[in-house]
């Protein structure tokens, strides 16, 4: 066998190892976690509107930290940790949180109604999930689709719009978590 042939076979071997290592994204537990958060948080807008702001002001940042922790634990368990990807996720979702807080200021300042702020936040989430689907984890596209559906449902339904939207988004997140085999088998340490 000549050397060029051997190089090509070696590269094929490397390609195989890389394909086996391809990560489908974060752990499923992150999607389950946010599905529960949404399933409680969205209906609050119908049931207890006064609590909505507080709920998300706490659950947003705390949920981000819990997600980071779940991602880190998943990386340790599987033996494959990508710090760069972790940083990109952190920047992406922190950026979203900052913009959401900035949009809340519009409501506080009385420039737009709280209904409009709520809908705008759902649109921001739609775009964030879509961009995360493009750049970070393809499964996020399910979240983007569910968020867009939630936006139109909240806009169109005269009653219980946010509750129905919450169910739709939570379902989208569960589908996202289930698709693509996110739970890579843990490596025995």
């Amino acid at each position: 066998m000549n050397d060029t042939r051997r190089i090509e076979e070696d590269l094929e071997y490397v390609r195989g190892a890389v394909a086996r290592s391809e990560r489908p994204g974060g752990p499923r537990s992150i999607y389950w976690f946010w599905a529960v958060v949404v399933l409680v948080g969205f209906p609050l807008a119908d049931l207890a509107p006064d609590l909505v702001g507080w709920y998300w002001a706490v659950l947003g940042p705390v949920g981000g930290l819990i997600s980071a922790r779940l991602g880190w634990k998943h990386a340790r368990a599987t033996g494959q940790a990508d710090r760069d990807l972790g940083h990109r996720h952190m920047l992406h979702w922190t950026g979203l949180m900052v913009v959401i807080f900035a949009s809340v200021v519009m409501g506080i300042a009385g420039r737009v109604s709280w209904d409009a702020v709520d809908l705008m936040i759902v649109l921001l989430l739609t775009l964030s999930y879509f961009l995360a689907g493009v750049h970070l984890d393809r499964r996020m596209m399910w979240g983007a689709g569910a968020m867009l559906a939630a936006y139109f449902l909240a806009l169109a339904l005269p009653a219980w719009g946010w509750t129905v939207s919450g169910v739709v988004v939570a379902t989208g997140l569960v589908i996202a978590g289930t698709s693509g085999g996110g739970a890579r088998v843990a490596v025995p340490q």
Partner: protein
Amino acid sequence: MSPSRSDPAWRALDGLEKLLDHRVRLAICVLLSRNGSISFQRLKQLLDETDGSLGAHLRKLEDAGFIRAEKTYRDRRPITWYSMAPAGRKRLRSHLGALERVIRGVGAPDGDGGR
């Protein structure tokens, strides 16, 4: 005519690393360059190597400054994590570039086997 490894044109190629001639070592470096860090056990699973063989390859790469090892503990059991050293990343890029030139050179119509 296909070039042989004894052909001076081969070694004249800038950036070709002798250590990465072995496909397991090349795969280790490529995997580590695509991921932040990978544990010994995960590498073993991905490359389907024995402990002894993988350990020997990793040691060679570590001694040559391609990769770095870091020990952590999980449930009191040691886990060794490997990552690319900055210099190793640069040398890997250069090696892969050289390999590409070799393959392209061989595939070229004049088949001169070089650049």
